[in-house]
Protein backbone atom coordinates (compact mmCIF):
# COMPACT_ATOMS: atom_id res chain seq x y z
CA UNK A 1 0.00 0.00 0.00
CA UNK A 2 2.71 2.40 -0.91
CA UNK A 3 0.12 4.70 -2.41
CA UNK A 4 -1.75 5.00 0.85
CA UNK A 5 1.21 5.30 3.16
CA UNK A 6 2.83 8.22 1.35
CA UNK A 7 1.06 11.46 0.60
CA UNK A 8 -2.61 11.95 -0.09
CA UNK A 9 -4.85 9.29 -1.59
CA UNK A 10 -6.34 10.20 -4.99
CA UNK A 11 -10.05 11.08 -4.66
CA UNK A 12 -11.58 8.18 -6.67
CA UNK A 13 -9.40 5.62 -4.92
CA UNK A 14 -10.22 7.20 -1.58
CA UNK A 15 -13.93 6.88 -2.34
CA UNK A 16 -13.55 3.24 -3.32
CA UNK A 17 -11.44 2.34 -0.28
CA UNK A 18 -13.73 4.14 2.15
CA UNK A 19 -16.84 2.67 0.62
CA UNK A 20 -15.51 -0.85 1.05
CA UNK A 21 -14.17 -0.23 4.54
CA UNK A 22 -17.45 1.28 5.65
CA UNK A 23 -19.58 -1.78 4.89
CA UNK A 24 -17.19 -4.47 6.08
CA UNK A 25 -16.46 -3.48 9.64
CA UNK A 26 -15.18 -6.56 11.42
CA UNK A 27 -16.03 -6.01 15.00
CA UNK A 28 -14.27 -7.43 18.04
CA UNK A 29 -16.83 -7.81 20.80
CA UNK A 30 -15.62 -6.84 24.20
CA UNK A 31 -18.74 -7.47 26.21
CA UNK A 32 -18.10 -6.84 29.87
CA UNK A 33 -21.25 -6.03 31.80
CA UNK A 34 -24.91 -5.09 31.34
CA UNK A 35 -24.20 -3.29 28.05
CA UNK A 36 -23.00 -6.59 26.59
CA UNK A 37 -26.57 -7.88 26.76
CA UNK A 38 -27.83 -4.83 24.87
CA UNK A 39 -25.01 -5.26 22.38
CA UNK A 40 -26.03 -8.92 22.08
CA UNK A 41 -29.60 -7.83 21.44
CA UNK A 42 -28.35 -5.51 18.70
CA UNK A 43 -26.18 -8.24 17.16
CA UNK A 44 -28.29 -11.36 17.53
CA UNK A 45 -31.73 -10.00 18.32
CA UNK A 46 -34.15 -10.35 15.44
CA UNK A 47 -35.55 -6.91 16.19
CA UNK A 48 -32.32 -4.95 15.64
CA UNK A 49 -29.87 -7.03 13.57
CA UNK A 50 -26.78 -4.88 13.14
CA UNK A 51 -25.39 -7.17 10.44
CA UNK A 52 -27.57 -5.46 7.86
CA UNK A 53 -25.19 -2.50 8.23
CA UNK A 54 -22.23 -4.63 7.23
CA UNK A 55 -20.91 -5.13 10.75
CA UNK A 56 -19.58 -8.65 11.15
CA UNK A 57 -19.20 -9.43 14.84
CA UNK A 58 -17.24 -12.68 14.66
CA UNK A 59 -13.56 -12.12 13.87
CA UNK A 60 -11.53 -15.05 15.11
CA UNK A 61 -8.79 -12.81 16.40
CA UNK A 62 -8.12 -9.12 17.06
CA UNK A 63 -5.65 -9.28 14.18
CA UNK A 64 -8.60 -9.45 11.79
CA UNK A 65 -10.72 -6.77 13.43
CA UNK A 66 -11.31 -3.16 12.33
CA UNK A 67 -13.51 -2.12 15.21
CA UNK A 68 -13.54 -2.88 18.90
CA UNK A 69 -16.60 -2.22 21.03
CA UNK A 70 -15.94 -1.83 24.73
CA UNK A 71 -19.31 -2.37 26.35
CA UNK A 72 -19.44 -2.38 30.10
CA UNK A 73 -17.46 -1.66 33.21
CA UNK A 74 -13.70 -1.67 32.72
CA UNK A 75 -11.97 -2.67 35.94
CA UNK A 76 -8.33 -2.10 36.75
CA UNK A 77 -7.78 -5.85 36.55
CA UNK A 78 -9.23 -5.96 33.03
CA UNK A 79 -7.55 -2.83 31.63
CA UNK A 80 -4.19 -4.44 30.66
CA UNK A 81 -5.97 -7.11 28.63
CA UNK A 82 -7.95 -4.47 26.70
CA UNK A 83 -4.80 -2.48 25.95
CA UNK A 84 -2.97 -5.57 24.77
CA UNK A 85 -5.70 -6.72 22.43
CA UNK A 86 -6.21 -3.21 21.08
CA UNK A 87 -2.53 -3.06 20.18
CA UNK A 88 -2.83 -6.33 18.28
CA UNK A 89 -5.40 -4.84 15.91
CA UNK A 90 -4.10 -3.61 12.56
CA UNK A 91 -4.40 0.08 11.57
CA UNK A 92 -6.76 1.75 10.67
CA UNK A 93 -8.76 0.76 13.74
CA UNK A 94 -11.74 2.25 15.51
CA UNK A 95 -13.05 2.13 19.08
CA UNK A 96 -16.64 2.46 20.25
CA UNK A 97 -17.09 2.98 23.96
CA UNK A 98 -20.57 1.84 24.88
CA UNK A 99 -22.27 2.83 28.11
CA UNK A 100 -21.56 5.18 30.97
CA UNK A 101 -19.12 2.84 32.68
CA UNK A 102 -16.82 2.62 29.67
CA UNK A 103 -17.22 6.35 29.02
CA UNK A 104 -16.40 7.71 32.45
CA UNK A 105 -16.97 5.17 35.21
CA UNK A 106 -20.72 5.72 35.39
CA UNK A 107 -22.39 4.79 38.68
CA UNK A 108 -19.05 3.50 39.98
CA UNK A 109 -17.37 6.90 39.83
CA UNK A 110 -16.10 6.51 43.40
CA UNK A 111 -15.28 2.82 43.32
CA UNK A 112 -11.77 1.68 44.17
CA UNK A 113 -11.54 -1.00 41.49
CA UNK A 114 -13.12 0.59 38.39
CA UNK A 115 -11.18 2.38 35.64
CA UNK A 116 -12.91 5.72 35.17
CA UNK A 117 -13.31 5.60 31.43
CA UNK A 118 -11.69 3.39 28.83
CA UNK A 119 -10.28 6.52 27.12
CA UNK A 120 -7.58 6.50 29.79
CA UNK A 121 -6.01 3.48 28.12
CA UNK A 122 -7.06 3.56 24.44
CA UNK A 123 -8.25 6.41 22.15
CA UNK A 124 -12.02 6.36 21.62
CA UNK A 125 -13.79 7.30 18.35
CA UNK A 126 -17.45 7.11 19.34
CA UNK A 127 -19.02 7.49 22.78
CA UNK A 128 -22.47 5.96 23.23
CA UNK A 129 -23.99 7.31 26.45
CA UNK A 130 -26.63 5.54 28.51
CA UNK A 131 -26.82 3.08 31.35
CA UNK A 132 -27.20 0.87 29.45
CA UNK A 133 -27.75 2.46 26.00
CA UNK A 134 -30.61 1.04 24.01
CA UNK A 135 -29.65 -1.12 21.02
CA UNK A 136 -30.87 1.73 18.80
CA UNK A 137 -28.27 4.04 20.35
CA UNK A 138 -25.54 1.51 19.63
CA UNK A 139 -26.69 1.21 16.02
CA UNK A 140 -26.68 5.02 15.77
CA UNK A 141 -23.06 4.93 16.94
CA UNK A 142 -22.23 2.49 14.16
CA UNK A 143 -23.95 4.68 11.56
CA UNK A 144 -22.10 7.81 12.72
CA UNK A 145 -18.82 5.91 12.61
CA UNK A 146 -19.57 4.82 9.05
CA UNK A 147 -20.23 8.41 8.05
CA UNK A 148 -16.90 9.43 9.52
CA UNK A 149 -15.10 6.61 7.72
CA UNK A 150 -16.65 7.79 4.44
CA UNK A 151 -15.41 11.33 4.91
CA UNK A 152 -11.83 10.69 5.96
CA UNK A 153 -8.58 10.19 4.09
CA UNK A 154 -7.38 6.61 4.71
CA UNK A 155 -3.76 7.64 4.23
CA UNK A 156 -3.94 10.05 7.15
CA UNK A 157 -5.64 7.48 9.31
CA UNK A 158 -2.97 4.98 8.34
CA UNK A 159 -0.32 7.28 9.69
CA UNK A 160 -2.17 7.42 13.00
CA UNK A 161 -3.99 10.75 12.75
CA UNK A 162 -6.69 11.10 15.41
CA UNK A 163 -9.83 13.20 15.23
CA UNK A 164 -12.32 14.60 17.69
CA UNK A 165 -14.51 11.81 19.07
CA UNK A 166 -18.20 11.57 18.15
CA UNK A 167 -20.81 11.56 20.91
CA UNK A 168 -24.12 9.90 20.09
CA UNK A 169 -27.26 11.71 21.13
Amino acid at each position, binding site marked *: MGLVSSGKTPKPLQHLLNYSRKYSLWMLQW*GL*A*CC*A*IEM*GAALAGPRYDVMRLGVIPFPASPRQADLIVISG*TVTDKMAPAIKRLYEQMPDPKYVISMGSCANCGGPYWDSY*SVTKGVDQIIPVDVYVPGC*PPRPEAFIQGIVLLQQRIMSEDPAERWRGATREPIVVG
Partner: protein
Amino acid sequence: MTTTDLPPPGELPEIAVDPAAFRHLADAQVNVELDTGDMVLNIGPQHPATHGTLRLVVRLDGERVVSADPIIGYMHRGYEKLTEFRTYPQITTLINRIDWLSSFANEVPFIDAAEHLMAIEAPPRAQYLRTILTELSRIATFVLFLGEMGLQVGAITPAFYGFRDREYVLNLIEAVTGGRFHPNFNRIGGIKDDLPWGWISECRGVMNKVLASCDEFDDLVVGNPIFQKRTRSIGIIPQELGAAYGVSGSNLRASGVDWDLRRDGPKYLVYDELDWQVWTHPDGDSFARYWVRLQETRESARMVLQMLDQMPSGPLMAKVPRIIKVPAGEVFVNTENPLGEMGYYVISKGATGPFRTKIRSASFSNVSILPWLLRGVYVPDIVTILASLYFILGDIDR
Protein backbone atom coordinates in the same frame (compact mmCIF):
# COMPACT_ATOMS: atom_id res chain seq x y z
CA MET B 1 24.55 -70.77 17.22
CA THR B 2 23.94 -73.25 14.51
CA THR B 3 20.64 -74.72 13.55
CA THR B 4 21.56 -78.01 15.14
CA ASP B 5 21.55 -76.41 18.63
CA LEU B 6 17.86 -75.49 18.41
CA PRO B 7 15.32 -77.92 19.86
CA PRO B 8 13.18 -79.70 17.28
CA PRO B 9 10.11 -77.67 16.25
CA GLY B 10 7.55 -79.90 17.91
CA GLU B 11 8.98 -79.37 21.40
CA LEU B 12 8.58 -75.57 21.61
CA PRO B 13 5.80 -74.57 24.04
CA GLU B 14 2.84 -72.70 22.51
CA ILE B 15 2.44 -69.26 24.11
CA ALA B 16 -0.81 -67.35 23.50
CA VAL B 17 0.22 -63.73 22.94
CA ASP B 18 -2.35 -61.00 22.99
CA PRO B 19 -1.45 -58.53 20.23
CA ALA B 20 -3.06 -55.74 22.28
CA ALA B 21 -0.33 -56.12 24.87
CA PHE B 22 2.29 -55.26 22.27
CA ARG B 23 0.27 -52.26 21.15
CA HIS B 24 0.07 -50.96 24.71
CA LEU B 25 3.77 -51.45 25.12
CA ALA B 26 4.41 -49.52 21.93
CA ASP B 27 2.04 -46.77 23.09
CA ALA B 28 3.80 -46.53 26.43
CA GLN B 29 7.11 -46.21 24.63
CA VAL B 30 5.73 -43.42 22.44
CA ASN B 31 4.34 -41.67 25.52
CA VAL B 32 7.74 -41.77 27.16
CA GLU B 33 9.46 -40.47 24.04
CA LEU B 34 6.93 -37.75 23.26
CA ASP B 35 6.14 -36.74 26.83
CA THR B 36 5.11 -33.08 26.81
CA GLY B 37 3.38 -32.85 30.14
CA ASP B 38 -0.08 -31.40 30.56
CA MET B 39 -1.21 -28.62 28.30
CA VAL B 40 -2.46 -25.48 29.95
CA LEU B 41 -5.39 -23.85 28.18
CA ASN B 42 -6.34 -20.35 29.22
CA ILE B 43 -9.98 -19.53 28.50
CA GLY B 44 -10.83 -15.90 29.00
CA PRO B 45 -10.88 -13.37 30.64
CA GLN B 46 -12.96 -12.37 27.64
CA HIS B 47 -14.46 -15.26 25.76
CA PRO B 48 -17.96 -15.79 24.40
CA ALA B 49 -18.25 -19.20 26.01
CA THR B 50 -17.67 -17.86 29.51
CA HIS B 51 -20.59 -15.41 29.41
CA GLY B 52 -18.51 -12.47 30.48
CA THR B 53 -15.18 -12.07 32.11
CA LEU B 54 -14.67 -15.40 33.82
CA ARG B 55 -11.18 -16.75 33.29
CA LEU B 56 -10.58 -20.47 33.42
CA VAL B 57 -7.11 -21.93 33.58
CA VAL B 58 -7.56 -25.53 32.46
CA ARG B 59 -4.87 -28.20 32.52
CA LEU B 60 -5.47 -30.75 29.80
CA ASP B 61 -4.26 -34.29 29.33
CA GLY B 62 -5.06 -34.76 25.66
CA GLU B 63 -8.74 -33.95 25.41
CA ARG B 64 -9.51 -34.46 29.10
CA VAL B 65 -9.45 -31.86 31.82
CA VAL B 66 -7.03 -32.62 34.63
CA SER B 67 -7.84 -29.55 36.69
CA ALA B 68 -9.72 -26.30 36.17
CA ASP B 69 -9.22 -23.12 38.16
CA PRO B 70 -11.75 -20.33 37.77
CA ILE B 71 -10.11 -16.94 38.24
CA ILE B 72 -12.62 -14.28 39.16
CA GLY B 73 -12.43 -10.58 39.95
CA TYR B 74 -12.38 -9.08 36.45
CA MET B 75 -15.80 -7.55 37.10
CA HIS B 76 -15.29 -6.59 40.74
CA ARG B 77 -16.82 -3.16 41.22
CA GLY B 78 -16.74 -2.92 45.01
CA TYR B 79 -20.47 -2.93 45.75
CA GLU B 80 -20.19 -3.65 49.45
CA LYS B 81 -17.94 -0.65 49.91
CA LEU B 82 -20.05 1.61 47.67
CA THR B 83 -23.20 0.89 49.70
CA GLU B 84 -21.52 2.51 52.70
CA PHE B 85 -21.41 5.83 50.85
CA ARG B 86 -24.94 5.86 49.39
CA THR B 87 -28.38 6.42 50.87
CA TYR B 88 -30.96 3.66 50.79
CA PRO B 89 -32.87 4.96 47.72
CA GLN B 90 -29.57 5.42 45.88
CA ILE B 91 -28.50 1.86 46.59
CA THR B 92 -31.37 0.34 44.61
CA THR B 93 -29.87 2.00 41.53
CA LEU B 94 -26.60 0.20 42.19
CA ILE B 95 -27.92 -3.24 43.07
CA ASN B 96 -29.94 -3.36 39.86
CA ARG B 97 -26.60 -3.91 38.20
CA ILE B 98 -25.37 -6.86 40.28
CA ASP B 99 -27.25 -9.46 38.28
CA TRP B 100 -28.08 -7.47 35.20
CA LEU B 101 -30.36 -9.98 33.57
CA SER B 102 -32.93 -9.97 36.36
CA SER B 103 -32.47 -6.51 37.81
CA PHE B 104 -35.86 -6.15 39.41
CA ALA B 105 -35.46 -9.34 41.42
CA ASN B 106 -32.28 -7.89 42.96
CA GLU B 107 -34.06 -4.90 44.41
CA VAL B 108 -36.65 -6.92 46.29
CA PRO B 109 -34.50 -8.46 49.06
CA PHE B 110 -32.69 -5.19 49.76
CA ILE B 111 -35.89 -3.15 49.97
CA ASP B 112 -37.37 -5.93 52.11
CA ALA B 113 -34.42 -5.67 54.47
CA ALA B 114 -34.86 -1.90 54.82
CA GLU B 115 -38.60 -2.33 55.36
CA HIS B 116 -37.99 -4.96 58.04
CA LEU B 117 -35.71 -2.55 59.91
CA MET B 118 -38.19 0.32 59.58
CA ALA B 119 -41.11 -1.98 60.52
CA ILE B 120 -43.30 -0.92 57.59
CA GLU B 121 -45.03 -3.11 55.07
CA ALA B 122 -45.92 -2.33 51.50
CA PRO B 123 -49.65 -2.34 50.64
CA PRO B 124 -51.09 -5.45 48.94
CA ARG B 125 -51.28 -3.96 45.45
CA ALA B 126 -47.62 -2.95 45.63
CA GLN B 127 -46.75 -6.48 46.75
CA TYR B 128 -48.60 -7.88 43.76
CA LEU B 129 -46.86 -5.51 41.36
CA ARG B 130 -43.49 -6.47 42.82
CA THR B 131 -44.26 -10.15 42.40
CA ILE B 132 -45.41 -9.68 38.82
CA LEU B 133 -42.28 -7.72 37.90
CA THR B 134 -40.03 -10.26 39.68
CA GLU B 135 -41.59 -13.10 37.75
CA LEU B 136 -41.35 -11.12 34.50
CA SER B 137 -37.64 -10.62 35.07
CA ARG B 138 -37.35 -14.34 35.82
CA ILE B 139 -38.94 -15.09 32.47
CA ALA B 140 -36.67 -12.57 30.72
CA THR B 141 -33.64 -14.28 32.26
CA PHE B 142 -34.69 -17.82 31.53
CA VAL B 143 -35.79 -17.39 27.92
CA LEU B 144 -32.34 -15.99 27.21
CA PHE B 145 -30.85 -19.08 28.87
CA LEU B 146 -33.11 -21.41 26.88
CA GLY B 147 -31.82 -19.85 23.67
CA GLU B 148 -28.20 -19.44 24.72
CA MET B 149 -27.86 -23.06 25.81
CA GLY B 150 -28.82 -24.11 22.30
CA LEU B 151 -26.14 -21.80 20.95
CA GLN B 152 -23.49 -23.45 23.14
CA VAL B 153 -24.16 -26.89 21.67
CA GLY B 154 -23.98 -25.51 18.14
CA ALA B 155 -27.59 -24.62 17.31
CA ILE B 156 -27.94 -20.97 16.39
CA THR B 157 -31.72 -20.79 15.86
CA PRO B 158 -32.79 -21.06 19.55
CA ALA B 159 -30.71 -17.97 20.36
CA PHE B 160 -32.87 -15.87 18.04
CA TYR B 161 -36.01 -17.31 19.63
CA GLY B 162 -34.66 -16.48 23.06
CA PHE B 163 -33.89 -12.87 22.15
CA ARG B 164 -37.29 -12.52 20.48
CA ASP B 165 -39.17 -13.57 23.62
CA ARG B 166 -36.92 -11.49 25.81
CA GLU B 167 -37.81 -8.40 23.78
CA TYR B 168 -41.52 -9.05 24.38
CA VAL B 169 -41.00 -9.22 28.13
CA LEU B 170 -38.63 -6.25 28.20
CA ASN B 171 -41.29 -4.21 26.43
CA LEU B 172 -43.70 -4.98 29.27
CA ILE B 173 -41.14 -4.06 31.93
CA GLU B 174 -40.29 -0.87 30.06
CA ALA B 175 -43.95 0.12 29.81
CA VAL B 176 -44.31 -0.09 33.59
CA THR B 177 -40.95 1.13 34.85
CA GLY B 178 -39.41 3.14 32.01
CA GLY B 179 -36.23 1.07 31.94
CA ARG B 180 -35.53 -1.87 29.70
CA PHE B 181 -33.64 -3.81 32.29
CA HIS B 182 -32.60 -1.51 35.06
CA PRO B 183 -36.02 -0.49 36.39
CA ASN B 184 -35.06 1.04 39.77
CA PHE B 185 -38.77 0.95 40.50
CA ASN B 186 -38.98 -0.24 44.09
CA ARG B 187 -39.35 2.31 46.83
CA ILE B 188 -39.09 1.67 50.54
CA GLY B 189 -42.73 1.20 51.54
CA GLY B 190 -44.14 0.42 48.12
CA ILE B 191 -43.64 0.95 44.44
CA LYS B 192 -43.28 4.10 42.35
CA ASP B 193 -46.16 4.02 39.90
CA ASP B 194 -49.25 2.13 38.90
CA LEU B 195 -49.61 0.09 35.74
CA PRO B 196 -50.15 2.01 32.50
CA TRP B 197 -53.48 1.79 30.72
CA GLY B 198 -54.04 -1.38 28.74
CA TRP B 199 -51.01 -3.12 30.22
CA ILE B 200 -52.88 -6.04 31.77
CA SER B 201 -54.41 -7.27 28.52
CA GLU B 202 -51.09 -6.86 26.73
CA CYS B 203 -49.33 -8.81 29.48
CA ARG B 204 -51.86 -11.63 29.10
CA GLY B 205 -51.08 -11.81 25.39
CA VAL B 206 -47.33 -11.90 25.97
CA MET B 207 -47.61 -14.59 28.64
CA ASN B 208 -49.55 -16.76 26.21
CA LYS B 209 -46.81 -16.13 23.64
CA VAL B 210 -44.19 -17.18 26.19
CA LEU B 211 -46.11 -20.37 26.98
CA ALA B 212 -46.32 -21.13 23.26
CA SER B 213 -42.63 -20.51 22.72
CA CYS B 214 -41.81 -22.77 25.69
CA ASP B 215 -43.52 -25.52 23.71
CA GLU B 216 -41.31 -24.54 20.77
CA PHE B 217 -38.20 -24.89 22.92
CA ASP B 218 -39.54 -28.23 24.11
CA ASP B 219 -39.77 -29.50 20.56
CA LEU B 220 -36.75 -27.79 19.10
CA VAL B 221 -34.15 -28.21 21.84
CA VAL B 222 -35.24 -30.69 24.52
CA GLY B 223 -36.49 -33.21 21.99
CA ASN B 224 -33.41 -32.87 19.83
CA PRO B 225 -31.23 -36.02 19.91
CA ILE B 226 -28.02 -34.02 19.35
CA PHE B 227 -28.84 -31.76 22.27
CA GLN B 228 -29.57 -34.75 24.47
CA LYS B 229 -26.30 -36.43 23.54
CA ARG B 230 -24.36 -33.29 24.40
CA THR B 231 -26.06 -32.72 27.76
CA ARG B 232 -27.34 -36.02 29.21
CA SER B 233 -25.19 -37.43 32.04
CA ILE B 234 -22.66 -34.64 31.60
CA GLY B 235 -21.74 -32.37 34.47
CA ILE B 236 -23.62 -34.25 37.17
CA ILE B 237 -23.89 -32.46 40.52
CA PRO B 238 -24.72 -34.90 43.35
CA GLN B 239 -27.31 -33.65 45.84
CA GLU B 240 -25.18 -33.57 48.97
CA LEU B 241 -22.15 -32.11 47.23
CA GLY B 242 -24.19 -29.38 45.58
CA ALA B 243 -25.75 -28.42 48.88
CA ALA B 244 -22.33 -28.48 50.58
CA TYR B 245 -20.88 -26.12 47.96
CA GLY B 246 -23.81 -23.75 48.41
CA VAL B 247 -25.25 -24.28 44.94
CA SER B 248 -28.78 -22.93 44.93
CA GLY B 249 -31.74 -22.19 42.74
CA SER B 250 -32.54 -24.17 39.63
CA ASN B 251 -29.09 -25.80 39.66
CA LEU B 252 -29.87 -27.46 42.98
CA ARG B 253 -33.44 -28.30 42.04
CA ALA B 254 -32.09 -30.04 38.94
CA SER B 255 -30.20 -32.35 41.32
CA GLY B 256 -33.46 -33.41 42.93
CA VAL B 257 -33.45 -31.14 45.98
CA ASP B 258 -36.99 -29.90 46.55
CA TRP B 259 -36.08 -26.47 47.90
CA ASP B 260 -37.42 -23.13 46.82
CA LEU B 261 -37.28 -20.05 49.04
CA ARG B 262 -40.46 -18.74 47.49
CA ARG B 263 -42.27 -21.65 49.13
CA ASP B 264 -39.96 -22.80 51.94
CA GLY B 265 -38.41 -19.54 53.12
CA PRO B 266 -39.97 -16.88 55.34
CA LYS B 267 -42.95 -15.21 53.70
CA TYR B 268 -42.12 -12.57 51.14
CA LEU B 269 -44.21 -11.05 48.35
CA VAL B 270 -47.43 -12.93 47.62
CA TYR B 271 -46.25 -16.40 46.63
CA ASP B 272 -48.34 -18.04 49.37
CA GLU B 273 -51.54 -16.74 47.75
CA LEU B 274 -50.80 -18.38 44.41
CA ASP B 275 -51.30 -21.89 43.12
CA TRP B 276 -47.98 -23.10 41.78
CA GLN B 277 -45.49 -25.90 42.14
CA VAL B 278 -41.74 -26.39 42.49
CA TRP B 279 -40.11 -28.40 39.71
CA THR B 280 -37.28 -30.83 40.34
CA HIS B 281 -35.40 -33.33 38.22
CA PRO B 282 -33.58 -36.36 39.65
CA ASP B 283 -30.61 -36.45 37.24
CA GLY B 284 -28.53 -33.39 38.13
CA ASP B 285 -26.86 -33.15 34.71
CA SER B 286 -26.80 -30.31 32.18
CA PHE B 287 -29.98 -31.59 30.59
CA ALA B 288 -31.80 -31.56 33.94
CA ARG B 289 -30.81 -27.96 34.52
CA TYR B 290 -32.18 -26.99 31.13
CA TRP B 291 -35.38 -28.93 31.73
CA VAL B 292 -35.99 -27.43 35.17
CA ARG B 293 -35.54 -23.89 33.85
CA LEU B 294 -37.92 -24.60 30.99
CA GLN B 295 -40.61 -25.77 33.43
CA GLU B 296 -39.97 -22.80 35.70
CA THR B 297 -40.44 -20.40 32.81
CA ARG B 298 -43.84 -21.96 32.19
CA GLU B 299 -44.67 -21.86 35.89
CA SER B 300 -43.72 -18.16 36.09
CA ALA B 301 -45.91 -17.33 33.10
CA ARG B 302 -48.83 -19.15 34.73
CA MET B 303 -48.17 -17.31 38.00
CA VAL B 304 -48.25 -13.94 36.23
CA LEU B 305 -51.56 -14.88 34.55
CA GLN B 306 -52.99 -15.80 37.97
CA MET B 307 -51.81 -12.58 39.55
CA LEU B 308 -53.30 -10.46 36.78
CA ASP B 309 -56.67 -12.04 37.60
CA GLN B 310 -56.58 -11.64 41.36
CA MET B 311 -54.71 -8.35 41.79
CA PRO B 312 -56.32 -6.14 44.43
CA SER B 313 -56.81 -2.40 44.09
CA GLY B 314 -55.61 0.09 46.65
CA PRO B 315 -52.72 2.41 47.46
CA LEU B 316 -49.19 1.81 46.18
CA MET B 317 -47.16 3.38 48.98
CA ALA B 318 -47.23 2.97 52.74
CA LYS B 319 -46.67 6.06 54.86
CA VAL B 320 -42.96 6.76 54.70
CA PRO B 321 -41.05 9.84 55.93
CA ARG B 322 -39.63 12.11 53.27
CA ILE B 323 -36.01 11.61 54.31
CA ILE B 324 -35.49 7.93 54.98
CA LYS B 325 -33.51 7.11 58.10
CA VAL B 326 -33.42 3.45 58.97
CA PRO B 327 -33.35 2.64 62.72
CA ALA B 328 -30.32 0.85 64.14
CA GLY B 329 -30.37 -2.91 63.81
CA GLU B 330 -29.29 -5.88 61.71
CA VAL B 331 -31.30 -8.05 59.36
CA PHE B 332 -30.64 -10.75 56.79
CA VAL B 333 -33.16 -11.20 53.99
CA ASN B 334 -32.73 -13.79 51.28
CA THR B 335 -34.95 -14.48 48.33
CA GLU B 336 -35.19 -16.87 45.42
CA ASN B 337 -33.71 -14.99 42.47
CA PRO B 338 -33.66 -16.44 38.96
CA LEU B 339 -30.04 -17.48 39.40
CA GLY B 340 -30.44 -18.82 42.92
CA GLU B 341 -30.51 -17.62 46.47
CA MET B 342 -29.69 -13.93 46.87
CA GLY B 343 -29.39 -12.33 50.28
CA TYR B 344 -28.48 -9.03 51.89
CA TYR B 345 -27.17 -8.73 55.42
CA VAL B 346 -27.72 -5.08 56.32
CA ILE B 347 -26.34 -3.43 59.43
CA SER B 348 -27.84 -0.02 60.13
CA LYS B 349 -26.71 2.51 62.71
CA GLY B 350 -29.61 4.90 62.28
CA ALA B 351 -28.17 6.95 59.41
CA THR B 352 -29.50 7.59 55.90
CA GLY B 353 -27.31 4.82 54.54
CA PRO B 354 -26.35 1.37 55.81
CA PHE B 355 -23.26 0.94 57.97
CA ARG B 356 -22.30 -2.29 56.27
CA THR B 357 -23.91 -4.56 53.71
CA LYS B 358 -22.93 -8.14 52.98
CA ILE B 359 -24.21 -9.42 49.67
CA ARG B 360 -24.75 -13.14 49.25
CA SER B 361 -25.07 -13.68 45.54
CA ALA B 362 -26.12 -16.90 43.89
CA SER B 363 -23.59 -17.19 41.07
CA PHE B 364 -20.56 -16.96 43.36
CA SER B 365 -21.57 -20.14 45.13
CA ASN B 366 -22.75 -21.75 41.92
CA VAL B 367 -19.37 -21.45 40.21
CA SER B 368 -17.45 -22.52 43.30
CA ILE B 369 -18.28 -26.10 42.34
CA LEU B 370 -16.53 -25.70 38.96
CA PRO B 371 -13.10 -27.14 39.93
CA TRP B 372 -14.82 -30.29 41.13
CA LEU B 373 -17.33 -30.44 38.29
CA LEU B 374 -14.90 -29.89 35.41
CA ARG B 375 -12.38 -32.52 36.49
CA GLY B 376 -12.25 -35.35 33.97
CA VAL B 377 -14.65 -33.92 31.38
CA TYR B 378 -13.80 -33.36 27.72
CA VAL B 379 -13.01 -29.89 26.41
CA PRO B 380 -16.26 -29.34 24.44
CA ASP B 381 -18.23 -30.26 27.57
CA ILE B 382 -16.66 -27.38 29.49
CA VAL B 383 -18.75 -25.04 27.37
CA THR B 384 -22.05 -26.84 27.92
CA ILE B 385 -21.44 -27.20 31.65
CA LEU B 386 -20.61 -23.50 31.99
CA ALA B 387 -23.71 -22.57 30.00
CA SER B 388 -25.99 -24.89 31.96
CA LEU B 389 -24.82 -23.54 35.33
CA TYR B 390 -25.93 -20.11 34.08
CA PHE B 391 -24.07 -17.50 36.04
CA ILE B 392 -23.67 -13.77 35.59
CA LEU B 393 -20.24 -12.31 36.15
CA GLY B 394 -21.57 -9.27 37.94
CA ASP B 395 -23.28 -11.63 40.32
CA ILE B 396 -20.02 -13.49 40.97
CA ASP B 397 -17.66 -10.58 41.50
CA ARG B 398 -20.10 -7.90 42.63
